[in-house]
């Protein structure tokens, strides 16, 4: 009898499963029908992962920045054309002292999403919170331009010595250590975005872990956050510029699988995606396809302490032997452009594009003859007749492996050198670079702020990011002077000089300036793709009814 019972139970389970399957089918059909109509102001996008934290003073990654910059406004906000203008953010205007050190911001009348007014005190509190050693904010250094900031953060000064002063509820005064042309842009960066003082005091370390532990000042508010799954934004009714915001809802999924991502775009479940490498050919000829230049350069970095690459001629030989045109057309295929300089195009110089002012290129692409000669010369300078085994270090992602192999192939073909490849996990690679356990590495650098300095000061002798161990006193002097130079014209000239020296010594061999391909459905209008910072700007976006 017992046995019969079991059979019955198993049968029931089967039946249930089957009926559920059938019921599920019916449900999904009606659901997908309602999704395909785009008569509402709803935008569907994908985040590459769960935002690690929405605490503005602790966020460091692009996904967190994507969300935070849409739900919070800073003193400034980048406009549609990527410019900072008075009144584009929470400061309606500002005065800068003649020495370029003191900024006085006049705040507009704006409200937090809980109805309270946004005050200068909120900014002062947030900035000092970022600098408080107990907050342990990784990006605290983004505020080190402010007088007294670094001292407070490293325990050598107090919060009161940080030169951020609330003059009254609507006036904030900041004094900098040195003239910093990019400071206005920086005030739109996440570390500078305040929350209401009372929220910080109430939630402490739990700020930004859930939507109710945040308060909003930007175009949107977070209405729902299912961890690892989805985030829903709704229009912020209390936003000072809410008349410019047309979208009612923005849905974010968190799909990581490339094939799934593409299928969701094709099914109209997503309105725009960044096209994964393997799918570029699929969309390349579509009118929905485009790419945005990122302020990011990729280069082969040489360990200038290694027995071979301590020689500049050999470094140059390896750089010149790379065929960049083939590399971007056949290997990356993503709209990236060949790089024969360090600072990517689009980064502002004195009066326009820095790249145009400094000259487009410092050397010829794929200059095999010159490369061979330099290699010969370098080897005789070192007194060797045969190169030791040279290893190229790289990440262990599919793309990185493909890129490393392409470089390996070019060196073999153009220089006749056999290079080994070592692919390791990202953090392991960083650790090996710091310790100098490598010959050369394929690496990239994205802008921290919109200024050439972000690509150049890292190669100063004692800079923590200089894992090429490059050192040139002349270079250091130029960068140090540029950092404090209030005369923007001569500052720009110093940066151009510095880049020239860097390309002459060549601790890094530029390969390409990265672009990121994306597709957007034709009914999505005014969705912008900034060159650095967040992935999108959809404050002004809307859905055109068709």
């Amino acid at each position, binding site marked *: 009898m017992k046995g019969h019972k079991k059979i019955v139970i198993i049968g029931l389970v089967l039946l249930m499963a089957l009926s559920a399957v059938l019921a599920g089918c019916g449900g999904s059909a009606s659901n997908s029908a309602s999704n395909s109509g785009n008569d509402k102001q709803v935008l569907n996008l994908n985040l590459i992962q769960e935002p690690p934290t929405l605490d503005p003073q602790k966020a460091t990654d692009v996904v967190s920045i994507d969300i935070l910059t849409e739900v919070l406004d800073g003193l400034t906000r980048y406009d549609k054309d990527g410019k900072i203008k008075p009144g584009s953010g929470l400061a309606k205007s500002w005065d800068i002292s003649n020495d370029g050190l003191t900024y006085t911001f006049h705040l507009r009348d704006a409200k937090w999403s809980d109805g309270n007014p946004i005050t200068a005190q909120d900014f002062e509190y947030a900035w000092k919170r970022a600098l408080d050693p107990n907050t342990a904010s*990784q990006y605290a250094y983004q505020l080190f331009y402010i007088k007294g900031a670094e001292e407070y953060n490293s325990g050598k000064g107090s919060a009161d010595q940080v030169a951020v002063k609330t003059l009254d509820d609507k006036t904030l005064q900041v004094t900098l250590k040195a003239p910093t042309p990019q400071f206005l842009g920086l005030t739109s960066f996440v570390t500078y975005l305040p929350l209401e003082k009372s929220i910080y005091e109430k939630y402490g370390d739990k700020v930004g872990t859930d939507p109710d532990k945040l308060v909003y000042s930007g175009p949107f508010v977070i209405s729902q956050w299912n961890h690892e799954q989805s985030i829903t934004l709704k229009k912020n009714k209390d936003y000072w510029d809410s008349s410019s915001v047309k979208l009612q809802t923005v849905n974010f999924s968190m799909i990581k699988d490339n094939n799934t991502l593409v299928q969701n775009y094709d099914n109209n479940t997503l309105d725009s995606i960044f096209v994964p490498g393997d799918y570029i050919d699929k969309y390349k000829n579509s009118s929905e396809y485009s790419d945005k230049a990122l302020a990011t350069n990729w280069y082969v970095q040489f360990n200038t302490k290694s027995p071979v690459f301590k020689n500049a001629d050999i470094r140059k030989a390896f750089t010149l032997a790379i065929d960049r045109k083939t590399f971007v057309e056949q290997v990356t295929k993503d709209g990236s452009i060949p790089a024969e300089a360090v600072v990517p195009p689009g980064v502002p110089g004195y009066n326009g594009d820095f790249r145009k002012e400094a000259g487009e290129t410092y050397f010829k692409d794929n200059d095999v003859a010159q490369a061979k000669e330099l290699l010969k010369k370098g080897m005789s300078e070192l007194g060797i007749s045969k190169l030791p085994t040279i290893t190229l270090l790289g990440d262990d992602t599919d793309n990185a492996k493909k890129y490393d192999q392409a470089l390996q192939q070019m060196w073999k073909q153009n220089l006749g050198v056999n290079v080994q490849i070592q692919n390791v996990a990202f953090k392991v690679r960083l*650790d090996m670079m710091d310790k100098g356990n490598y010959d050369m590495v394929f690496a990239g650098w994205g802008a921290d702020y919109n200024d050439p300095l972000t690509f150049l000061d890292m190669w100063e002798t004692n800079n923590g990011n200089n894992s090429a161990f490059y050192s040139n006193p002349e270079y250091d002097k130029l960068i140090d002077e540029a950092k404090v130079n209030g005369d923007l014209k001569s500052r720009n000239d110093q940066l151009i000089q510095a880049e020239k020296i860097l390309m002459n010594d060549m601790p890094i061999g530029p390969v390409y300036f990265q672009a990121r391909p994306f597709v957007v459905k034709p009914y999505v209008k005014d969705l912008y793709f900034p060159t650095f910072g967040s992935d999108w700007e959809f404050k002004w976006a809307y859905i055109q009814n068709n």
Partner: protein
Amino acid sequence: MVNYSLKRFVYMLITLWVIVTLTFFLMHMIPGDPFTSEKKVPEQIRQNMLAKYHLDKPLIVQYGYYLNNLIHGDLGISLKYLNRTVDDIIKQSAPASFQLGIQSIILGVVFGLLFGIIAALKRGGGWDYFSMFLAIIGISVPNFIIATLLQLLLASKLKWLPVSGWGSFKYTILPSIALSFSTLSIISRMMRTSMLDVIGQDYIKTAKAKGLSQFQIIWKHMVRNAIMPVVTVLGPLIAGIVTGTFVIEQIFSIPGLGKFFVQSIYDEDYSMILGTTIFYSVILVVMMFLVDIAYGLIDPRVRLAKGGK
């Protein structure tokens, strides 16, 4: 039985302690640390961060902290998802993995047993070849291929089911099926083999001679005896599946625990590595214990042997 359970429980704790200790020291040998980042931060900021999460202390002290917290049921704060506790993350992610795992196990076991039994009874017939064909596919084709094919056919082309996501039951169907394939094939092959073993036994002839019905012979005498090896593999199989699977969860974009097992190692998120390892180990050890109890229920001889000790 109580004595036996108690002994098993103590062994379980020792096993867990060994796993925690090994994992703790091994993971600290990975080059870098949770705060290794491409953009170097000033040394003082690094020190502030290390101090906040006690990573500035000697390793053995950190180990002490960890064990102490663990005894109090605290798995610590994730070093990637700053401010979120590992307990929270596991609590939020495990249910999805668990539901998916259970559904796929039910599918796999029910159909696996069914196919195995029928294949053995109709040995050499069409059913036998069909189930063998299915088993070969299940074992040799990785489940992400099956998943992608199902997704393409049933979701993208026919639009019967959603491509990806999580929420209502319909989202669970494709991933459950994709995930059940390997279980199904393992179980059907095992069941077939052990059924064939049993079919040749004398007591089956006796049962037939007694005039028992076909159904009673199969259910009471064959299946019950043949199912032991299947029950043995079921323990680790269930533990492996209900704690989440990286690939299937990624393909169907399911907010489960699977990715944390893999990603936490890349992120060097120490507390998350330990948290997921402990979670998996506990489930595994508990499953093995349940399997032991199940032996006793299915096979009275096991019960007697234990009682005799």
